[in-house]
């Protein structure tokens, strides 16, 4: 910063006052400049972050001809319905949407419930082999899921679960990361006294879990569930490997298949509409849950 130091004259002369006020004005000016630069930078990043969304949304309402000849505009076009028609005749996007919704919802529920159950079991009870079992979980947290996909495919083939949604849903019962997170969460949100007092009141173990523990773990479970939903909604690799028939396809698979379609170049509006359909639900979920989620990401940073 500026190192200029203005000496204050002993006598309160006018000139010195003028100097001071002029200097103050300069500082104001410079501050304004700095603020302008900073906000311009933020604005630029903001644009970069949302511009692809914006292009997708706007272009999903325009026809392919307008997109390729008129470039970008701010005004939405009037071809939304037509794009929708083209998209749905060429791609199974609506069934895929519901497939994705079904898989993601079930994954979310299963991983949330069973992870809470498991974390609770690990936290509350002292049984033989507990530390060993938890150690196993920790170890396998480091094994990337991609590592096992070939074995998984072969195994599902033998089980007859290939090309079924089950093969994508069931593994979420054993969501290692979620269990790990919830076990840490539970130790700060659930006191043992509470469980013991419920026992004294005569509640059964499962009843205690459902009526007392689960509601108290609610926020933690909710956070991980939203991440589970987003992860499952966006999952491409394992869906592509497991699912093969058109009727089972998930949204990312259909989106990926757009690349190989004739409409990729010719009916760009429909392609963009496909993107929009895959993006909008997740963004809506996020906007509602953002405060919550970001705080939890942040909390993770501090603990980590």
């Amino acid at each position: 910063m500026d190192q200029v130091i203005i000496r204050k004259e002993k006598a309160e002369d006018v000139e010195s006052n003028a100097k001071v006020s002029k200097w103050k004005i300069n500082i104001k000016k410079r501050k304004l400049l700095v603020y302008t630069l900073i906000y311009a930078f933020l604005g630029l990043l903001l644009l970069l972050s949302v511009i692809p969304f914006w292009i997708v949304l706007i272009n999903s309402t325009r026809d392919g001809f307008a997109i390729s000849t008129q470039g970008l505009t701010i005004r939405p076009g009037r071809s939304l319905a037509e794009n929708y028609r083209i998209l749905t005749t060429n791609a199974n996007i609506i069934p895929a949407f519901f497939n994705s919704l079904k898989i993601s919802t079930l994954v979310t529920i299963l991983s949330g419930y069973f992870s809470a159950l498991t974390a609770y079991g690990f936290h509350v009870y002292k049984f033989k082999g507990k530390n060993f079992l938890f150690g196993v979980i920790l170890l396998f947290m480091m094994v990337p899921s991609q590592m096992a996909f070939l074995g998984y495919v072969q195994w599902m083939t033998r089980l007859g679960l290939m090309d079924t949604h089950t093969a994508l849903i069931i593994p979420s019962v054993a969501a290692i990361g979620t269990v790990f997170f919830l076990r840490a969460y539970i130790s700060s949100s659930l006191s043992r006294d509470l469980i013991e007092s419920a026992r004294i009141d005569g509640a059964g173990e499962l009843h205690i879990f459902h009526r007392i523990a689960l509601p108290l773990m609610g926020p933690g479970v909710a956070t991980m569930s939203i991440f589970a939903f987003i992860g499952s909604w966006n999952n491409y690799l394992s869906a592509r490997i497991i699912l093969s028939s058109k009727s089972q396809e998930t949204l990312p698979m259909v989106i990926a298949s757009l690349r190989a379609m004739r409409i990729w170049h010719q009916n760009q509006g429909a392609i963009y509409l496909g993107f929009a359909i895959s993006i909008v639900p997740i963004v809506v979920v996020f906007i509602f849950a953002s405060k919550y989620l970001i705080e939890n990401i942040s909390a993770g940073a501090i603990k980590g």
Partner: protein
Amino acid sequence: MAKVTLKNIAKIYDNGFQAVKNINLEILDKEFMVLVGPSGCGKTTTLRMIAGLEKITLGESYIGETLVNDVEPKNRNIAMVFQNYALYPHMTVYDNLAFGLKIKKTPKDEIKERIERTAKILGIEPLLKNRPKQLSGGQRQRVALGRAIVRKPGVFLMDEPLSNLDAKLRVQMRAELIKLHNELQTTFIYVTHDQTEAMTMGSRICVMHDGVIQQVAEPKTIYNHPANIFVASFIGSPQMNFLQGRLSEKQGKIFATIEGLELELNEEASGKVKEKNYAGKEVMVGIRPEDVYLVNDNEGIQSKAEVSELLGCNLHIYFKINEKQYTLSTSPKVEVGFNERIFVSFDRDKLHLFDKETEETIL
């Protein structure tokens, strides 16, 4: 020369909150000035404005003869000790002390020499290689002080530096800080909410409330001549008792009637009352617990002892008059039982009289 002068300083936050309203304060060179007041009174904000950590909204601030309103903190020739010490967690104690000097590109030998000397003063030589995490609260406190000392600043700013220590350590550090001030011969500006700290350490005390300075004076003056009800109640423990009183003039003498007890004021007080024309008016009478006596039956106001606390050198008795609770402090030899009937009277020379409206002192 490290005189600090605040002229009509005010701090208004963006949300419109006025943390500090028009403060004028001159802190002399080598003075130990304590800013004291309840939390939210603006004392910390004032200190931070002196440090340059907060922008001054209105007014002018000088360090020495220099207007520092827009001077960066680093160029103000100050050092600051923070409430939570603010030690750099990833640096050793040595590096913590050296940080400011390194930035100023002080030669290495000199840094070493200065740190060693400082460490000696504070008795932290064995800790130099440790990290803050490995230190106890008291040790951290010393390191934080050391970091300030090592820079040889013109002004020391301290923001509640003792508040995170346990009671015993706090008393010990208090004495050390006074010693340190004497040794360093530098201006200290010290912020605290603890009136005991203020009374014991400050060469002068500035009592603040609601962003306004209530009184600036030496500790003794503050205690004996509080400028208003706020200062009177804030300084002193147990708190001063306040009672409704009525002044009356009888044959040129001024009497104060308190709960039926009539006391004649001394000459000095009487003079002030007459001069300010308070005779015949309702006033607020303040009396410190140590100036309340137990008297023989029917020689004072009748009351009932509710609780008594033995503090060792003193005995505090809580009693009620007209449903309001008051305190008196007396010798521990006195024995008063629970719910025992007592009679109290006041030292007429130690009465504090305050205007009921303005709450300013009359005397």
